[in-house]
């Protein structure tokens, strides 16, 4: 299966960007494997960009060191899911220790996906989202794959950071041909109707990665124009 992917990362109206994204494409035995991640550092706490950057860095490292080898060895779905959870638990633990030593608190939301030839794996904690867009024209569908771990859309109930461990949501499943996956931070989707995201990323309309980048950029400009002040980050992966 062939993948086309690209990402967009924008500071928005903020002074700094507390979001972190990772997009890795690897060819394994002639087949492509894609790792996509979006982390949104918690702005209310200190060092939000460090928390998101740290998790992005660790997860990327894990992808190269463990996940690829496990996929190559055809390890079971459960083992791969657990391995991802273990690394997130490690991040949480490390941030907790750091917080205790330094008297500071930090945290980040995370949505990470691995897309292989047949399957996908997803780890999610917080209010970043993953969407799947399938179908053609008017019959196109958009499905939100993640639930927002928030109360009343404001208080974050789960995150990775210097807090007690709350297990992230883990999913896996089979890929449907000609579909698009979109991972985005809350800044990207807050002022954007799901219908609009669907229209922009209908699989049949996405053929090159430049198109993905252009559309992500256009949508970012749109949400900024509608008063979004948060950092805006998104990664989109289209499969043939």
């Amino acid at each position, binding site marked *: 299966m062939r993948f086309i992917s690209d990402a967009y990362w924008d500071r928005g109206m903020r002074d700094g960007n507390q979001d972190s994204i990772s*997009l*890795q494409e690897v060819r*394994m035995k*002639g087949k492509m494997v894609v790792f996509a991640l979006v982390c949104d550092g918690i702005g209310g706490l200190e060092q939000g960009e*460090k928390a998101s950057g740290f998790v992005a860095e660790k997860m990327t490292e894990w992808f190269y060191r463990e996940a690829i080898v496990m996929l190559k060895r055809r390890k079971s779905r459960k083992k791969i899911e657990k391995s991802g959870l273990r690394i997130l638990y490690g991040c949480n633990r490390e941030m907790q220790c*750091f917080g205790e030593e330094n008297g500071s608190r930090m945290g980040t939301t995370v949505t990470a996906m691995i897309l292989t030839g047949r399957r996908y794996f997803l780890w999610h904690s917080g209010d970043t989202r993953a969407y799947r867009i399938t179908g053609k024209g008017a019959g196109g569908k958009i499905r939100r794959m993640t639930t927002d771990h928030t109360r009343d859309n404001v208080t*974050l*109930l789960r995150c990775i950071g210097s807090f007690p461990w709350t297990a992230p949501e883990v999913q896996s499943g089979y890929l449907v041909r000609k579909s698009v996956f979109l991972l985005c931070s809350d800044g990207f989707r807050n002022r954007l109707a799901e219908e609009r995201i669907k229209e922009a990323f209908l699989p049949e309309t996405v053929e090159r990665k430049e198109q993905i980048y252009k559309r992500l950029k256009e949508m970012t400009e749109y949400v900024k124009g509608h008063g979004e002040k948060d950092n805006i*980050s998104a990664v989109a992966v289209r499969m043939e």
Partner: protein
Amino acid sequence: MKGMEIGKYIFYEELGSGGSGTVYRVYDKHLKCDRAVKKFSEEGEIWKKEMDMLKELRHPLLPVIMDTIEDGENRYLVMEYIEGKNLRDYVRERGRIGQEQAVEWVMDLAEALIYLHERSSPVIYRDMKPANIMVDQGGNLRLIDFGTAWMRYQREDKAFRAGTYGYAAPEQLAAEGTEDMDERSDIYGLGATLYYMLTGEDPSKPPFLIHPIRFFDRSFPAGLERAVEKATAAEKEARYGTMRQFQAVLKKYKKKNRMWERAGRITEGLYYIALLGICICFARLCNEPGKEKEILFCAAVIIGLCLAKTAVASCTGRNRRGIRRERSLLLTEKRGKGLMILFMGILSMAVTGTVQASTSRNTEHSFPVSINREQPLAEEENSLWVDVRNEKGQKLLIRYDAVYLLTETLKLELPLSNFTEGGIYRLRLECMDCETEETSSRTFYLKGLEP
């Protein structure tokens, strides 16, 4: 400083700046030639230390000190000027370096480091990275910037954390101190530099990883891949013991050795032929009665071969065969690697006092507007929603059990959804010091909008 004249030197170009100072290209009026002058940014003894160290060093790859200048409070070190560019820019412009050239250069650098390590008072260079290596016009290397070099057994030369993320060994950046640094720290830096030359990937940039080199080019020998991995092992005990050992290993790969590659492929082919043959035998024997012993033997051989292949693959790192990186994008504003980075360490130490003070104050005060409490509320009590915002008006989207630090103004915002139309409410904000039980409060009367 452009155009400035100090003594016989005219400053006319800034070549670069680092942690310890800025380097300028100057013109020597008397000798009518160019020189490099390092102006030290800090007052203190760093310049003296670097001067004392450099004046004793005599090696073709190390800089030669020409003169020192003291101009008021400023200290300058005059060195020979090397016409060329640093290795980082060289690789950026020309792309990755071929195996033969890269190994040869690393062996030259290893020679210079052996000279430093094996002196009567050993020097640990500590900042081996492409930006500190100059490539002159003849293609020869020169090591520059001894600002972080450390004389190992001199008590007065106290070690401090130094190095560049990605190229510095983990023990160099450890928070506990740098007492256990030795020549193996330089082996890490040299291994990372070799990795950069061979792959063109900068380990000091996200995602800060040193992948197996055959991840980028399958034509590299597996032995060279192991050598780079061993040199850049996180545990210093897992690295080469001395620079000489590393140099000896690299000698084998000075020229591409395709013989071993071919031998490996032939062995692998033979393995699969043998496995296939035994599987065919096994299938035939299964149809013949009275051959239980032979069937068992065949089954044992098949299992044995599979186990042996797995063991060999895990030992030689061949699990990564057939894996090639196509694209890597990691965008973050976080600087450096990991959490315990130098910058953050210093920063957090600076703010710890403030934060701890505010945390302790924070825990001692409680807001009865208990909207974000972990404990379930009594059944008859409804929760009142309060948004918490910072000075800039950003919503503090934090967990329900988070402690709000009083380092800046906190704004409590009551959404209208809390109130019914036309209703009159009394809002009591109470703050209690848990230690003294001293309470301060304020009551507000609120009226909901008329329908």
